[in-house]
């Protein structure tokens, strides 16, 4: 039973995910205050704003990773293809297979490169035999632009790769379960500029195939990789629009101050 969710902007195509009046509280702290937002399959959406503005918290609501924090309380609706992900009949394991996540710090498992990528397909039973699994691993590493760097050492430890390679391995790991949405929580904040450039190129490559939501502290990164940008401040959404419009002609004074570096 899918609810009919009206898109926020009539001109756009059908949104992949819709966030309606979402509030998040950690105990007494009101971290996210009534957010309404649409996310599209063929677009990269950047969430920007000063530290503590609630953008990462909102991101972690989209695949319910906040469930693991005991005093976190989420109110409102988040729809994935018109289905509320916080509904009682939703299987959170299924949800996370559809909405993948890449973390701030690369967190490959202390297993081989192959096993890192094969982890998701194995637990979800996506491959019937070894050949099919090999194919998924190769395709995922290929999409993450890592295949040619690691194809001769798939049995090496994933944790022994460089930081940028580790992060692309984590992206390959997320891609391997064939998600519809990929959430990225400051994926480049622990990487050097060259590794950052590679990951940004990868995000560009992946956009159009997956709905990508990226939290970033770098204005240039948001401008480079995203088509939609959302500016948060103190838990509230200040401005939402096309990236070019936000960065060239922001409507709100706070947005202008932030992107020109006056606050934040």
């Amino acid at each position, binding site marked *: 039973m899918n609810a009919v969710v009206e898109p926020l902007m009539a001109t756009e195509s059908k949104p992949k995910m819709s966030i309606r009046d979402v509030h998040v509280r950690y105990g007494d702290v009101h971290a996210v205050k009534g957010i309404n937002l649409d996310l599209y399959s063929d677009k990269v959406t950047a969430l920007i704003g000063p530290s503590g503005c609630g953008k990462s918290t909102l991101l972690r609501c989209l695949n319910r*990773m906040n469930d693991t924090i005991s005093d976190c309380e989420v109110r409102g609706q988040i729809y994935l293809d018109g289905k509320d992900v916080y509904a009682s009949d939703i299987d959170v394991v*299924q949800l996370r*297979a559809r909405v993948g996540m890449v973390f701030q710090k690369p967190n490959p498992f*202390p297993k081989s490169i192959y096993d890192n990528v094969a*982890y998701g397909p194995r*637990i979800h039973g996506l491959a019937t035999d070894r050949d099919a699994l090999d194919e998924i691993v190769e395709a995922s590493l290929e999409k993450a632009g890592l295949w040619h760097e690691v194809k001769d050492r798939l049995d090496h430890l994933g944790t022994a790769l460089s930081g940028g390679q580790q992060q692309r391995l984590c992206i390959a790991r997320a891609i391997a379960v064939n998600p519809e949405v990929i959430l990225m929580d400051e994926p480049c904040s622990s990487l050097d500029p060259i590794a950052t450039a590679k990951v940004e190129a990868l995000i560009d490559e992946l956009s159009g195939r997956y709905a990508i939501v990226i939290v970033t502290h770098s204005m240039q990164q948001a401008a480079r990789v995203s088509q939609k940008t959302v500016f948060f401040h103190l838990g509230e959404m200040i401005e939402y629009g096309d990236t070019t419009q936000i960065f060239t002609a922001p409507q709100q004074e706070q947005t202008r101050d932030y992107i020109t570096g006056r606050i934040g």
Partner: protein
Amino acid sequence: MTNATIFVVIALLGLFAFVAVRQRSVALVSGATDQLHSLPRYHGYYAAVVVSLPSLLVLLLWVTTGKLIVENLILSGLPQETVAANAERIDLLINRIRLVAENGSAIETDETILSAATRFNSLYQQGVAATLALAVGIAAAGYFYATNKVGRKFRARARYEQVLLVLLAVSSFVAIGITIGIVASLIFESLRFFQQVPIAEFVFGLKWSPQTALRVDQIAAEGSFGAVPLFAGTFLISFVAMCVAGPIGLLSAIYLTQYAGPALRGFAKPLLEILAGIPTVVYGFFAALTVAPMLRNHGAVFGLDVASESALAAGLVMGIMIIPFVSSLSDDAITAVPDSMKQGSLALGATPAETIARVIIPAALPGIISSFLLAISRAVGETMIVVMAAGMRPNLTANPLEAVTTVTVQIVALLTGDQEFNSAKTLSAFALGLALFLTTLVFNIFALRLVRRYRQVYE
């Protein structure tokens, strides 16, 4: 006058030196202490150390060797015929003299010994007086040395630090030295044992029956010293113990780290660690008086003949005892796995159970294995429970329902009661102790290595 008096005198001299030299350093600069390199109290500390440490060393030397010196003096002063008559038992003679010297002459009638005892006491008192004189003399010399050193530029603080450093180093070497000494004595006594019993018999022999003749004319069994049944019993009981402690400890660690809330965890973890604080003798009679009869009665219901002192009873109770070792060390290992691993797995749609089985346990495995190894080495060396609840009869069996004996039980049995120290029976305790030490050492080395390798991964 006693040695304690000398100690008090030295301590008072040190205190006096502290006060006097501190005063002197203040007086030297007429109260303007900022002109001194070191604070007045450091001049005081330095003086106290210079005055008391050498005297204390003299006292230590006297306390450790004084009686030996006096004994030798007495011995050389004894009439030739007394010494000759007691040639084989010279230590017994010395003991008789010292007994009279220390406790009075209630039963002793031998004139030679009575006079020797009187001489012993007077010589010893002279020794104490000489030590006191020497100590005070050295202290006085130290006092004058320290007083002369007091000056604006004298670096009393640095010198005092040097003395402290030496004291700290000596303390740690004393601890290491004593440990080496214990191991060395184990090795030496074991070598004496292996001169009487071939090492191959000890290591591979299947029969343990240490009854040897105490005297040449005594009729007794030849005595066989095959340690295999003892180690078999030890490992059988340890195995039963690990069957209890391994699963319960590991699963409780998983529950407490992954599922339990902070309130339950804060309550349950210390409670579990209390298990480690129960005296082993309490576990021992719990095993002997509660668990063993219960197993025997329940076994009878199923037609099993459970011995009243079974390996099973001792092993079960020992398992309960070592649960905290497994659970708290595994807990540490699991907690040390970065939370980002867990998050990464959950974000891929793995269930909590899949995350634990496929990511957290493999990542924590070296730590978990080392916790098992440490628990095993604890079980192997455990004595009180098996003395009370396992049997005394060497029994080479894999059936936990039978009575077995362990290495530790046999060591206790060998060394209780009157023993001839040179007999193979007594010396075999040292060989068993050495073998036990080597076994637990191997387990501990493996465990520590694993932990160290594990730390390199995440820090």
